[in-house]
């Protein structure tokens, strides 16, 4: 990875002009001249937004989260001693199963406290990512679609393909049930429900229902998530101190 040298403005322009044009540029960019500053954060944020991109590169107009971008960030969070907790923000339609499960496994294996917030949507493979954290929140209006694994647009022609997909599905079900209090039977029931989704089988679970089924821990947003994460960070610190004394 090579660093680029950043030249914000071209040379041979006088200073005042530079400053003025930079303010004009900022107004054009965000409609304001400065953004709020706050003290250094011991909590880092991992956004999972748009489609989860796996082996196939999606067209440029799709908003995607690439797992090869997220995984090094998760490792950096684990390694950096200044980072004490991680918030995972989800607003995803789902995507590649293998990539999604990889991200979920990475998050669940972090030693630092983690909290997730499902905002808008945490559909399909977003479900294992949402439950991968130590504690999970869902916004009241957010939804999670639970549906069977499939290859979009391809007809499953041979039993081997079916078996392969069935195994993949079993991995998702076991991950979700290991990381939340939902029962496998209930999760499968939601997955194969008919009549809830147009032209598809599965269930669209809205905020409160996700908590009721035991998929997500609590209804909440930023405040609740930060509060919970800070509590967990304090608890972990106390436990470490106790170990040192002993």
């Amino acid at each position: 990875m090579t660093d680029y040298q950043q030249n914000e403005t071209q040379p041979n322009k006088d200073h005042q002009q530079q400053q003025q044009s930079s303010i004009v540029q900022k107004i054009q960019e965000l409609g304001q001249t400065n953004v709020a500053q706050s003290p250094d954060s011991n909590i880092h944020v991992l956004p999972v937004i748009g489609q989860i991109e796996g082996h196939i590169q999606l067209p440029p107009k799709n908003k995607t989260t690439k797992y090869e971008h997220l995984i090094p960030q998760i490792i950096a969070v684990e390694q950096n001693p200044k980072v004490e907790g991680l918030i995972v923000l989800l607003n995803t339609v789902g995507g590649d199963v293998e990539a999604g499960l990889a991200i979920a496994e990475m998050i669940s294996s972090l030693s630092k406290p983690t909290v997730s917030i499902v905002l808008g949507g945490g559909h399909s493979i977003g479900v294992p990512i949402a439950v991968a954290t130590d504690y999970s929140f869902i916004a009241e209006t957010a939804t999670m679609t639970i549906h069977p694994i499939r290859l979009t647009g391809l007809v499953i022609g041979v039993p081997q393909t079916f078996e392969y997909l069935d195994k993949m599905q079993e991995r998702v079900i076991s991950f979700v049930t290991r990381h939340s209090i939902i029962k496998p039977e209930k999760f499968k029931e939601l997955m194969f429900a008919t009549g809830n989704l147009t032209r598809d089988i599965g269930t669209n679970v809205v905020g409160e229902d996700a908590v009721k089924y035991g998929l997500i821990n609590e209804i909440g947003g930023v405040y609740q998530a930060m509060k919970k994460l800070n509590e967990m960070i304090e608890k972990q610190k106390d436990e470490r101190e106790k170990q040192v004394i002993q």
Partner: protein
Amino acid sequence: MILYTPLSEHDIFPVDETEYDQWKWVAIEGKMVKVQRQDDGSYEIVQFISTNPQDYLNTSYMPGRRIYLNENEGSSKRFV
């Protein structure tokens, strides 16, 4: 026109490969930034990846900001 098909849109209308070339990921001060090439040779910041919320308040990485990149070897500096 409405297409009733389980196929995704990009399977029916394939995207021109050159579409991807206008964007690239670069590291600026060790941070990952997605930039889009402009006609005047500058680059506009489109996306920024970091887990540190403070980085998002840094005006140097604001989306929409124009930057100039020192390209010595051109494509060899691309890492995505």
